[in-house]
């Protein structure tokens, strides 16, 4: 079982494979930095699609030899996204990654019905593996970035993707906590009705390979001491692997709080696509960016 993000990187390295990453609109120093580290660590090769001269210039400024990656010269932003997506679709690359292009434009390319990477009817969502120094293992949280107010169908997809990811980390039966402000079921919270459905779906075997309980607050989900004090019987028992949040705002604030004050690092990935798609926020640490690339390789 992987409990640290560095162990995840080791696992990827041990696969002895070179994953091909297509970067859309690649002339971005943050991206180039993270990519070059992954190349040097031997688990990827990169195809940088974008303005060739700018890519070389950015690399030079960062002291990186641009010969370590292949460059495809497509100067237009939208066209470079389309090219990168196409390469992944055609199996010329294993992973798609966003460079300097706008997130909106990039995702539009990903969800394009004819040429994109999202199967019809699939739910696109986002799962993050968080390493929080004070927690005894990794914590998978969803959705930090894509779905603002997930409905039951979307929550079901979020849950299934998180469980699949946690299982890739060697957690055979992940414990999924459905997060709210308290554990009592209240009709005043819209999320609670979805949560009770998810619990029942798990009970009835409609959701597999995991233990689900909620509503639960963060304490009951992640702190055994609180479970003892409150005396709430829950199979999660303060040992959650996955936290599913009721809204993007709640989840986003949670992970950013962990990054800002608790020294957390993360590896996050778009879910629902036919191949892994890496979208990183510019405010993330260089380490987290590197972890995102490694996670994408693990999930190929």
């Amino acid at each position, binding site marked *: 079982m992987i409990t640290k993000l560095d162990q995840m990187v080791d696992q990827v390295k041990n696969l002895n494979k070179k994953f091909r990453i297509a970067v859309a609109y690649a002339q971005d120093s943050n991206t180039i930095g993270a990519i070059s580290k992954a190349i040097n660590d031997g688990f990827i090769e990169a195809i940088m699609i974008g303005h060739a001269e700018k890519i070389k210039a950015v690399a030079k400024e960062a002291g990186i030899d641009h010969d370590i990656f292949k460059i495809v010269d497509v100067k237009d932003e939208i066209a470079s996204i389309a090219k990168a997506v196409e390469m992944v679709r055609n199996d010329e690359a294993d992973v798609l990654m966003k460079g300097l292009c706008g997130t909106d434009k990039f995702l539009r390319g990903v969800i394009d019905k004819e040429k994109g990477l999202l199967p019809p009817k699939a739910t696109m969502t986002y799962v993050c593996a968080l390493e929080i120094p004070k927690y005894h293992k990794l914590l998978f949280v969803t959705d930090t970035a894509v779905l603002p107010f997930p409905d039951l169908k979307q929550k079901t997809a979020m849950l299934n993707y998180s469980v699949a990811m946690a299982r890739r980390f060697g957690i055979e039966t992940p414990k999924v906590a459905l997060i709210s402000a308290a*554990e*009592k079921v209240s009709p005043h919270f819209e999320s609670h009705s*979805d949560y*009770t*459905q998810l619990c029942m779906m798990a*009970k009835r075997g409609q959701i597999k390979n995991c233990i689900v309980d909620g509503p639960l607050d963060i304490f009951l989900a992640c702190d055994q001491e609180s479970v003892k004090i409150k005396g*709430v019987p829950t199979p999660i028992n303060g040992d959650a692997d996955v936290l599913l949040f009721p809204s993007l705002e709640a989840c986003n604030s949670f992970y950013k709080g962990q990054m800002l004050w608790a020294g957390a690092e993360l590896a996050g990935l778009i879910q629902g696509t036919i191949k892994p798609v890496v979208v990183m926020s510019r405010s993330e640490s260089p380490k987290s960016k590197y972890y995102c690339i490694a996670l994408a390789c693990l999930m190929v």
Partner: protein
Amino acid sequence: MSITKLDQMFDALRSKDKKRLVGAYTVDSHSIGAISKAIDLGIVDATLIGDIDLIKATCQEEKIDINKFEIIDEKVVKKAAQKACLFIREGKGDLIMKGLLDTATYMRALLNKETGLVPKGSMLSHMTVIEIPSYEKLLVVSDVAIIPLPDLKQKIAITNNVIKTCRDLKIENPKISILASSESATDKISANADAAVITKMAERGQIKGALVDGPLSLDLSIDQEAVAIKGFKSPVAGQADGIVFPNIESGNVFYKTVTKLVKAELAAMVVGASCPAILSSRGDTEQTKLYSIALAALSV
């Protein structure tokens, strides 16, 4: 020990104080016959409010000693119902029984804000206890007569009332099935969706004193063989003591099917008023009315 046959209610009542029954226009032979038997069994004393001439005639015809009743002469049906309620309000009676009057008139008297018996914020619901020859115990079902399409809040109240009725029947930790057409969790069918919420509330201790599971289909609720064949795991399945129906049609069809086709016996009462109210239909047998009196007396 829990009561498993309707007849056993009489034994259980022997150890309890005798209750006073107030009859609202109980002038017909079925009502008077049942009350007379209940008096002979030592379960109740009775005050009959109604047309004294009709009561006398019925007693004569049925060879019942009229002196075993207290009789208050009231020839106007509506007033008799109102007086019966006042009697209860004044603490002169423990349970009320409908006689030869329309259900609507009787219910209006119960629900009257000034002179009725329903406290503000309380909800009436109907409890039916069925003895089915092929089932090893009694089955408490609701709501088959009053609430057409209960919403979640009403279903929670009904569930609590079913639990209370089971406990009145000495069933220690009753098993309650929240019925639907299948056991699957889905938000597409309100019966299934509400059942999942109620089950979780019971898990969280918001509904107490029972094991609750739902959605469950009828076969999974009461047929151990179906449960075994499907390999279904549930603390309730196959051995329900109580069933909460999603709507009046399903409940009504169920109880009429078992009483008419498999000769089930039943007892019924309305709960939620300040005292149990017997609302037997004019077509009910004397035996059903007697059982209903016993059930109401047990639940006081």
